């Protein structure tokens, strides 16, 4: 697989949310608006790329039996860095994403890629894999957030198209499940067409 394929697979072919069904908790939890979805996606991309980077650097040094705890510490460090930086410099986003920021550490995508990819591939491939999967995740979250915001609030990225409320169901928990279910169906159809 060349590096372009490595990068782009995260967007549709092996999209974390729509195809692999990983990282679903934040997907449903923060997508009440497109901005929140994008913010969470980018934060996760940062953690994913950095942890893939470090893991691929130390993969020959860390003994096999302690690799999971070691990966966890590495990932948790980057997550805490994101937490602190957001708290100090992006307080509104920090408040909006809330509990799900520390939960990036148990996002199955991050540990999954570290274990399945970064520990077995070169530095460059791992970084590109991290970027691709992360940005694909961000794309999925932004789309879901956008759909929910559009139907639920009549706005997109904060820009309101209608006055008053939309179909409130979409920004409440049931709406998250419903919107995601239909989106997954649509994405599968799209994937069938392209690949």
């Amino acid at each position, binding site marked *: 697989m060349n590096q372009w394929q490595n990068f782009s697979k995260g967007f549709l072919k092996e999209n974390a949310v729509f195809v692999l069904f990983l990282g679903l908790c934040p997907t449903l939890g923060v997508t009440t608006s497109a901005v929140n979805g994008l913010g969470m996606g980018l934060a996760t991309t940062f953690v994913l790329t950095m942890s893939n980077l470090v893991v691929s650097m*130390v993969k020959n040094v860390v003994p096999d*039996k302690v690799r999971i705890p070691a990966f966890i510490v*590495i990932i948790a*460090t980057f997550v805490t*860095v994101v937490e602190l930086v957001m708290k*100090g410099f992006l307080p509104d986003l920090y408040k909006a994403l809330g509990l799900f920021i520390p939960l990036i550490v148990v996002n199955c995508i991050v540990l999954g890629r570290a274990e399945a990819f970064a*520990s077995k591939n070169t530095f460059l491939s791992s970084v590109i894999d991290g970027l691709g999967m992360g940005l694909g995740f961000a794309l999925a979250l932004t789309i879901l957030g956008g759909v929910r915001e559009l139907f639920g609030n009549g706005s997109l990225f904060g820009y309101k198209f209608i006055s008053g409320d939309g179909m*409130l169901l979409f920004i409440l928990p049931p709406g998250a499940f419903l919107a995601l279910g239909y989106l997954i169906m649509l994405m599968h159809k799209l994937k069938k067409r392209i690949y």
Partner: protein
Amino acid sequence: MAKTESTFKNMLLTLFLVTFIASGTLGFVYEFTKEPIRMVEINKKNEAIKDVFPGFTNEPYQESFKVAAGKDSLTFYPAKADGKLIGVAVETYTNKGFSGLITLMVGFKMDGTITSIKVLSHQETPGLGQKIERDKSNFETQFEGKNPATFKLMVKKDQGNVDAITASTISSRAYCDAVQRAYDGFEAEKEKLENEKN
């Protein structure tokens, strides 16, 4: 994976090193972000105070003090212009919201008249209880310029003077509860504040 063998010594050493480097990195980032995080908190409060009580020249945050009230406490932010006390912003709360805690910042002139109210935090339902926010409906405007001594802080359903939000009586009631708590606290502390005002 392992080009390094999983001997006890290697495992211990690796884990120690990883943790050591991780702690070092975190400690550094923590120090770097400590001040911004502190400022965010202060700025948020100052914005809320400015919102309900514009026109002060002191540092209300520096002169703030807490008073116990019910399960939690109220925070009083005295607002002064040129050294003279012109009013108080009171940070209040209620646990009776539809989804729990609501916190408000209420501005009082020294005679007890409400200047305006800003919602600091809440978890009320979007489209319903969320309308307590000033930019979501006119609910808050009915409180401005009113004095709780004559304007009964209860919804009309409970024989008060407040027009509740349609279909959000619980949120409206909770809001009134918080404002009442602020007013009661204000009345209790008024004398102390006036004596300190110079």
